């Protein structure tokens, strides 16, 4: 139904309701449509008046919907009125109503009221992160930096993940301010981005750039750039950090891969204890490897060729510079078949070490173990994104470590592999995170608002340097 253009009389509403197919939900449907069409508040008021007259009361849902309409159109006085009414009628409200009040009021000159409502909400439940966002933005807009910071810390203490908008807002309203403490706070946000491997989007990046350039007396300059494979910034010729883990991080990752990914709750799910022990002994015997290859994965690179041919080709490509190779496979590869010619297999085993797992075991877990055991220089080859293994890790910190390590150590088959040759893209020489040397900052950012896949890393960077 189309909501009317002008406020209607009781009689007219009554007629409309009677003509409506299911009169019992008439008011709700009508108000929903008003929100959708952004009708004038007066029209909604006349509907409420009609409901109040015929029922003597207005239901909670209707009030909320009316409130949503008011918030949508920034009718501050109406929002306050509805708040008074709600406060009188109901002892507590639910989160949806609080969110609407806070959002509506924080955008108006009564933004302090939004803060008091937020305090009220805290007594009953954890406010939503968008409520915090509205309040922080409101405080920032009115130059109440301390209030904004308090709210931000409060939010972090409650384990809420701040929206990127909140972080961006901090950079926006701190522009041009000279406040050492605030500066530290913003550096804190940048290291938060670094620790959680979050990449700002273009708008956010712009805010960061403008803030840096606006710091009085520090003379920062920002440039947008692309960083090539070598990892050297074309603007300031600074070499970016590599993705090597520290000794401690490396040790943690190695331990967690063994306990969480390989053993998990039941070692028998991915392998068996005997097999794993045999594998460990095998690896210890022949350490260290330079490249570990997921044989089955690589053997499927070109679907038209024989599997063993693909693998043979890959091994030849990688075996050139006297590197030690380990190829992981399954036992069925040892049985002569149309895809696995035993002469080729024999020849390959002269060039590389092979380990054959049981046919129902998971070879990926072995791949990770062998690579990590061989040391920091060792890389691995697979087209798999290893997302299921990452998911086995129990906490986000280790998952970040894993991603970082994976970026620096996974050799992927390049997309030009559709052609005649197999090309291997070496692992990244640099780490794709927010990073600083004190007088330079390098911040990767993404062009689009949403990054679709977790394995994709942005190629665009913001280079900030301080000119003396």
């Amino acid at each position: 139904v189309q909501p009317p253009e002008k406020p209607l009389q009781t009689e007219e509403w009554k007629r409309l309701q009677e003509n409506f197919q299911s009169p019992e939900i008439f008011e709700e449907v009508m108000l929903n449509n008003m929100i959708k069409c952004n009708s004038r508040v007066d029209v909604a008021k006349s509907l409420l008046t009609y409901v109040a007259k015929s029922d003597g009361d207005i239901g909670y849902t209707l009030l909320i919907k009316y409130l949503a309409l008011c918030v949508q159109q920034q009718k501050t006085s109406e929002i306050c009125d509805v708040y008074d009414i709600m406060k009188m009628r109901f002892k507590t409200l639910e989160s949806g109503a609080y969110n609407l009040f806070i959002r509506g009021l924080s955008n108006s000159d009564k933004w302090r009221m939004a803060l008091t409502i937020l305090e009220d909400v805290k007594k009953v439940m954890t406010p939503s992160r968008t409520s915090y966002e509205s309040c922080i933005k409101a405080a920032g807009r009115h130059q109440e930096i301390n209030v904004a910071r308090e709210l931000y810390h409060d939010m972090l203490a409650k384990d809420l993940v701040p929206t990127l908008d909140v972080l961006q807002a901090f950079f926006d309203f701190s522009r041009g301010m000279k406040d050492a403490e605030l500066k530290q706070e913003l550096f804190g946000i940048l290291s938060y981005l670094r620790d959680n491997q979050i990449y700002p989007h273009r708008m956010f990046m712009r805010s960061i750039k403008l803030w840096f350039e606006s710091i009085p007396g520090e003379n920062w300059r920002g440039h947008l750039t692309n960083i090539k494979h070598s990892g050297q910034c074309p603007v300031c010729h600074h070499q970016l950090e590599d993705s090597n883990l520290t000794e401690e991080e490396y040790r943690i990752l190695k331990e967690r891969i063994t306990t969480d990914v390989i053993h998990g709750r039941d070692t028998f799910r991915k392998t068996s204890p005997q097999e794993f022990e045999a594998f460990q002994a095998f690896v210890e015997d022949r350490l260290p490897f330079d490249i570990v290859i997921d044989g089955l994965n690589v053997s499927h690179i070109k679907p038209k060729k024989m599997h063993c041919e693909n693998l043979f080709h890959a091994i030849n490509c990688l075996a050139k510079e006297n590197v030690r190779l380990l190829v992981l496979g399954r036992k069925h590869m040892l049985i002569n078949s149309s895809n696995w010619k035993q002469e080729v297999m024999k020849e390959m085993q002269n060039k590389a070490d092979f380990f054959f797992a049981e046919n129902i075991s998971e070879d990926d877990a072995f791949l990770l173990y062998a690579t990590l055991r061989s040391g920091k220089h060792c890389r691995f080859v697979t087209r798999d994104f290893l997302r299921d293994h990452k998911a086995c890790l129990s906490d986000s910190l280790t998952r970040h470590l894993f991603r970082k390590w994976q970026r620096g150590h996974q050799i992927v088959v390049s997309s030009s592999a559709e052609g005649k040759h197999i090309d291997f893209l070496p692992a990244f020489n640099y780490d794709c995170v927010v990073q600083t040397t004190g007088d330079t900052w390098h911040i990767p950012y993404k062009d689009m608002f949403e990054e679709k896949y977790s394995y994709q890393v942005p190629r665009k960077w913001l280079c900030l340097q301080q000119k003396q």
Partner: protein
Amino acid sequence: MQAVNMLLKNVARCSALPFAVQHGVKKDLFPLCRTLMLSPCLKEGSSHSASEKLDLDEWKKVMKSGVQEASEAVSEHKELSTVAAAREAVEMWRLAGRSVPENISDDQLKTLMECPSKASRKKYLKFLYLKELYKKNDKRKMEEKRERRLETQAERDLKLDEIKRNSFTCLWANAMDRTHNWRVAQSMIFGQPLVFDMSFENDMSPREVANTVRQIVFSESSNRKSVDPFHIHFCNFQENSQYHREFLKHYRQAWDKLLITVTERCYTEVFPKNKIIYLTADSPKVMKTFEHDKVYIVGSMVDRSIKTGVSLARAKRLGLETASLPLDKYLLWSSGAKNLTLDQMMHILLTLKDTGDWRKALEFVPKRKYCGFVGRSVSDLRKSLNLVNTLKLGKKREEVQERQFAKNYSKKMLQK
């Protein structure tokens, strides 16, 4: 109610004008009034329309006037325990029109508060809401049925003089029960064993355990009613486990009289290892025929989150033979996981045992999961699968070709 409404309307009429004047809409309002008053129609309906101008904020007054008693009612219970607060929150959600149950017990509230996240709380409330809805509907249907029965009863009473004569004696339910029990008792002595492995409690949430037990209860009843039942074993069954508690909920006193074997021991201790075949969807081996001298094991587990390899790991650990149903050989699978519910497994195994006919047995796979039977041969199957795939994937290509064709065709027409 009507009286109240009338009263309200009167109040509204009287108060409308002064209220509007107060709020300074005088200027806009008076021309309207004048035209209305000057209007020649002095019929009944319009006589009061002169005073009935639109007072847009009137609803606020109505809301505020009703407050007095409401706030009193609220202030009565002031206990602010967490349970009460949670109850209130649920009530507010209900008012806001979310999927939340009307009545909620203290136990349920406690489970609700133990939920780790917002989403899980929402999910649990929706679950309770649907449960309540189904219960209500069932109740309503029962009542309707009873009414209908009473009506027909009344009709029958009128024709009481016609006494029915029947040459068959009516076979009552308990007589049926006795025959079923006799058969199951026979199977407990001579029948083929079928084992439910009850060692998955730690891999499941409480709700999954409840679902599992429900499915086993269904399986047990269909086994009892079959012509040649299995001898059901519950192995690895712990006293006072979650399984046990759920079973007691379902069977109550009948639990001790069930004609099944319940044991704490593992199946490897009860049966010779070489006779055992563990059925699991993850098994690389596919079952070809049903063997009457083997002991089949079914894992009593519902996994809503598809944990692959849990039951296969059990079999691997004990070095047992495994098998999976030949679903791909006989069915054109369309969607859904290949793990079936326990009662479906039971139906399939019973049918296999009686007839050995895979097509008949696999009728019990839910229809939504497959497109049809492929009973011929593996190569045929592969062909039709390929066909399905090309139809699915190649549709776009075909469309493009069609469009191209249409384009060319119209070009030709133009050239003519």
